[in-house]
């Protein structure tokens, strides 16, 4: 089921010339929260993060900044949790030759499975990209946890009435994500998705062979994500699932699209059968048709 997407290496050639101009637009510049307009922003304008695992030194400043901004208690965990929205993990190959850090957090999918599955729309993608959570709506069904391919939404199981906990891209924060603000290594950049993709592809083209398959994880995976990742080791090796470019919600949508047809079709068929058989006095020998 999980076709490894073989998305193209040629993509970067197209933009190789886009060059330095875009560099100026990098990091924490110029992304407006865009709260005023109701029109959907084009994808390139969405808030996004670029995590370059080859630049990451594993200092974990981002973890601390996240905790501080979101007022989360310190805890000693090796996975995301109800109180840990982001985490740096170190991956090493068995012989220790290859190693890489990986930053875990919500990927802010372009077409998020969590939001599609949430029955009450508590999780939803806001106009400028972040996938956020309205706690007051949540009924705690945990379908979002089931549906997310990245295993992001978390729960505090010790509580009697827990809420979903996850990174919301600091969408209330004027300057954007706290974690990106603090990164001393340019390993974590915040900006518009379009710009960050260009930067990522520039880094790839300037350093041929440095990055895995010369491509950006999240450009197309699962329909694309707003957290883009560059890695020197295979994506699978740092726990990134291979996903089709087809957004996961599409897999359910067709079934939901035929619901009105079922409603009227079955209803109509039943009414018709009712009318036709009404006047027949059925004999006990008649069969059950279903």
């Amino acid at each position: 089921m999980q076709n490894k997407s073989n998305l193209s290496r040629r993509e970067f050639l197209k933009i190789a010339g886009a060059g330095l101009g875009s560099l100026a637009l990098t990091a924490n510049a110029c992304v407006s929260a865009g709260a005023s307009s109701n029109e959907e922003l084009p994808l390139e304008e969405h808030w996004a993060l670029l995590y370059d695992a080859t630049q990451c030194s594993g200092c974990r400043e981002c973890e601390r900044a996240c905790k501080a901004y979101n007022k989360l208690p310190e805890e000693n965990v090796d996975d995301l949790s109800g109180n840990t929205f982001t985490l740096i993990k170190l991956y090493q190959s068995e012989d220790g030759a290859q190693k890489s850090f990986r930053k875990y957090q919500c990927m802010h999918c372009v077409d998020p499975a969590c939001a599609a599955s949430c029955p009450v729309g508590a999780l939803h993608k806001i106009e400028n990209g972040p996938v956020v959570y309205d706690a007051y709506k949540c009924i705690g069904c945990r379908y979002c946890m089931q549906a997310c391919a990245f295993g992001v939404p978390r729960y505090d199981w010790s509580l009697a009435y827990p809420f979903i906990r996850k990174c919301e891209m600091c969408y209330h924060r004027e300057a954007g994500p706290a974690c990106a603000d603090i990164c001393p290594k340019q390993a974590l950049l915040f900006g518009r998705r379009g710009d960050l993709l260009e930067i990522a592809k520039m880094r790839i083209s300037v350093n041929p062979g440095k990055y895995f398959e010369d491509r950006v994880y999240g450009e197309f995976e699962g329909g694309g994500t707003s957290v883009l990742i560059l890695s020197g080791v295979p994506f699978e090796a740092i726990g990134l699932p291979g996903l089709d470019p087809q957004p996961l919600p599409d897999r359910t949508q067709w079934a939901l699209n035929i619901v009105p047809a079922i409603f009227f079709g079955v209803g109509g068929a039943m009414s018709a059968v009712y009318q036709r058989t009404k006047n027949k006095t059925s004999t006990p020998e008649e069969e059950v048709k279903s």
Partner: protein
Amino acid sequence: MTSITLPVVKKQVSIGTLILVFLAALGAFAAMFRWVDGFSHVSNLSDSRPWGIWISFDLLVGVPISAGAFVLAATVHIFHIEKYRPILRPALLTGFLGYLMVILALLVDLGQPQRIWHMLVYWNLHSPLFEVGMCVMTYTAVLFLEFSPPLLEKLGWTSLLQFVKKISIPVVILGVTLSTMHQSSLGSLFLIVPFKMHPLWYTSLLPLIFLVSAIAVGFGMVIFECAISHQVFGGQVRNEIFQGLARGMLITLGLLLLIKVGDLAYAGELGLIFSGTFQGNMFILENLIGIILPIAILLVPKFRKSSPWIFRAGLLTLLGLILYRLNIGLVSMAGEPYVPHVLELAVTIGLFSAGIMAFGFAMKNLPLEEDPCTHVH
């Protein structure tokens, strides 16, 4: 047959009833524990296993085993096949109680049970769970309407009874429609997790398989509950009813087998069945018990006419469905190993026991007189 409330109950409380009361009380205790203390000490649910036995059994099995209600309502009221009328009311009753149990189980499972009504207010049309929740709630109300005549008779509210009878056909049609929708969309719930689900079970046809298996077990349940209730409450099941139900079940099971095998063959995944893995073996077990054996039984002309064998086939179908749904919810899913906590099981078993008691109580105290699965020749 108007004096119904008679003796049996009062004479002595049977040991069976005592056990049921005990189990139900235990379940209630475990549920309390969850509502007061939280999930950790009651369940083995975890971030990688957000759905456990409560969803896999209480929801995924509870809904289809209540399908007898819509299958029979359609047969009698819409197809006008009158011979099944005597067993309609008990089927509606089981259905209604089944859905009540499902909702009660959800109240335990949901993290914010006090907000279960949010599904009626905050709509997300992209979510199959929204559809399931909406249908389950509306359909429970519909079932109550369908089942209310004996209750209203008993209470003597004739004008309301007249009204309910007047709208009964649209209500039945609505019920069948809602059932088709949510029995299938229960399967759609899993369409979004191809990356988590074992390919033996993951297919785009999940909604169809869920619907057809629910219809099959609808027949199975009616067979089952008729046989049980006639043993417990006396009377004789009419043989021709039994045989008709068996035929319906055979046809549906045949269709189910065709879909499942055809789908795997189309995907070129038949080999996975005999891979010898745990999943492969569970898949074999599920289909052997729930589809192949009952079909084999019912294909033998002699068995097809024998009530005890029909009963066995019905029981196997039911067991097979339970296995299928547990496999979907637990076995096919990737994640940390999960075994339900004792108290998790206690809730499930307790609810089930409460359901059986409620059914027994209603059978004895409500005028199911068109019925109850019995007919003295």
